[in-house]
């Protein structure tokens, strides 16, 4: 029961430190005063020590594991205390503040999580374009959404050095991020530079907060979503597909090359082989024909007259025995007297008509 009363008292103290003179104390004095004549002997004797005891007990306070106790004596900082139960001289001499120090605070810039619990996968995001649109060094605009995590590293500075702590961190974070983005070009912001931007922003934010002696330690600056503004996102996507197109064109051309060149090599080799074949054919044919001629010549030289005659007659026989050849025999006289007429149109039409040639000798 005492304990509850302590808490209540402590709370009251914390809420309104410069309260008017302590009622308990007045009560004490009053009771003591009344006690002297002994009009209410039993009651007063009991009430005074109880009240004094309660007052002394109100100095007990408990610091939670994630908190730090900051004790002020007459408003001035006096000491820090760690987690666990502690005692301070009761009001109005000392008072205690217990800021949460080990917990990591988090805030979002450029978007807000709405609906769903934090960290759950169903949460939805609402963009805040006035926070997220930033100018890059090459005068482009990017949409940057990020989160900042921070912790109180020095509760004394945090409580006593800066006012509006939350606004301070938030404003500084926005300023730092914009400064870093302003030093980068849009392409590096959108692609490879992200990690570097996070690190630079964290460093810059920490240096700003240190300059304010804020007692705040930046745990992390994390880019959540970095993309081109909605108005130009299609054009950016088209660049990506254009890059793919380029690769595709080159691949197509390579395919064409890979198809054509081996085929051509085959074709060239075929041409060469044909030529080689021609050469061999010619050589061998000439060798054959020469051999045949030389063989015939050998025999011819043995009996020139007969062989010559035989060859001639055999040739003529072969020619004239062909039924397809139309033969006309006229005397030498007639031949010299007739006017030669060449009936060209009938020549080819009736090849078989006419006199049968006389074959062989008579």
């Amino acid at each position, binding site marked *: 029961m005492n304990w509850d009363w302590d808490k209540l008292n402590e709370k009251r103290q914390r809420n309104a430190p410069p309260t008017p*003179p302590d009622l308990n104390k007045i009560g004490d004095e009053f009771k003591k005063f009344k006690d002297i004549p002994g009009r209410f002997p039993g009651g007063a004797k009991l009430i005074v020590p109880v009240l004094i005891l309660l007052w002394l007990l109100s100095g007990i306070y408990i610091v939670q594991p994630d908190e730090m106790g900051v004790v002020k004596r*007459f*408003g*001035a900082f006096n000491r820090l205390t760690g987690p666990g139960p502690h005692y301070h001289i009761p009001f109005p001499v000392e008072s205690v503040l217990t800021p949460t120090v080990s917990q990591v605070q988090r805030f979002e810039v450029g978007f807000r999580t709405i609906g769903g619990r934090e960290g759950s996968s169903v949460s939805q995001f609402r963009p805040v374009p006035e926070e997220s*649109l930033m*100018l890059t060094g090459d*005068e*482009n*605009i990017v949409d940057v959404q990020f989160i900042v995590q921070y912790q109180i590293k020095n509760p004394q500075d945090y*409580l*006593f*050095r*800066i*006012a509006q702590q939350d606004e301070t961190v938030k*404003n500084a974070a*926005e*300023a730092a991020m*914009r400064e870093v983005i302003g030093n980068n070009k849009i392409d590096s912001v959108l692609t490879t530079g992200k990690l570097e931007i996070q690190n630079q922003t964290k460093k810059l934010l920490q240096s700003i907060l240190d300059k*304010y002696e*804020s007692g705040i330690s930046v745990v992390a600056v994390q880019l959540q979503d970095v993309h081109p*503004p909605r*108005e*130009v996102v299609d054009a950016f996507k088209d*660049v990506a597909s*254009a890059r793919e*197109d*380029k*690769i595709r*064109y080159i691949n197509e*051309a390579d395919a*064409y*090359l890979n198809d*054509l060149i081996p085929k051509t090599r085959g074709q060239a080799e075929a*041409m*060469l082989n*044909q030529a080689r074949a*021609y050469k061999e*054919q*010619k*050589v061998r*044919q000439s060798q054959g*024909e020469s051999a045949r*001629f030389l063989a*015939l010549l050998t025999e011819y030289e043995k009996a020139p007259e007969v062989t010559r005659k035989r*060859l001639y007659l055999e*040739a*003529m026989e*072969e*020619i*004239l025995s062909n039924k*397809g050849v*139309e033969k*006309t*025999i*006229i005397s*030498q006289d007639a*031949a010299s007297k007739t006017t030669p007429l060449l009936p060209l149109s009938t020549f*080819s039409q009736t090849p078989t008509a006419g006199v049968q040639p006389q074959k062989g*000798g*008579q």
Partner: protein
Amino acid sequence: MSIFKSSSVLLLIVLAAIVLITQSVFTVDQTQRAIVLQLGKPVGGARGPGLHFKLPFVQNVIYMDSRILDYDAKAAEILTKDKKTMVVDNYARWQITKPLDFYTTLRTVSRAQARLEDIIYAELRVALGQFTLAQIVSSKRAEIMELVTEKSNAALTPFGIEIVDVRIKRTDLPPENQNAIFGRMRAERERQAKLYRSEGREEMAKIKSSADKERAVLLAEAGRKSEILRGEGDAQAAAIYAEAYNKDKEFYAFTKSLDAYKKSFRDNAKMVLTPSSEFFEYMH
């Protein structure tokens, strides 16, 4: 009766003592500083955190925040050196360093903020007017902030205020300029996309035409080599023929003529012969 009277007197004395004590003792919080006024006239310097004493009734205490305070300015349009309009949203962190000066010149935080507004805005506009938009956004940003902090500080010294930091939070463009930038960004990306595509086509044409060229060269080379081979064949054959036929030129002519006759007079030929030819030698 007398007992009651005396106890009432005692009670009065105690109450008076309490009032006297609360009037002569005051505490200053760790976040504050205080100045003591004696009938309106400051007495002593500023008091730091802790327990202090003063004369009751004739002295009163003015408390002031000793922390670094926030001043978030309204976004304002500013003209840059290259005649571009930009919306600058800045904030400042400031502190009351000389409570007495502060009290005599400004008295309240809200009046101080109005003064900060005037001075910082003016300094910011002057500083930003010396640089181009690109410089403000990137390279000169830190320098500008430092310059403004320094200048504002000089102007605010008489008020007992020190500016810790003037920081440009947002540098945006007015909506109409923003649209112009979007248009330019789009055009830039289109240019980039076109470049990629035409580079692709360029590569494609290069590769394809070089393949075609290689094909033509390969075929021509093959043609050249095959003509040489054919020529060699023809030459060797000619040599072989010549060697053989040279043995008897006349006989060669004879046999070759006969072969030629055989080949020439085939079907659909018409021959007019006279008996005087050698073939009819024995017909007479």
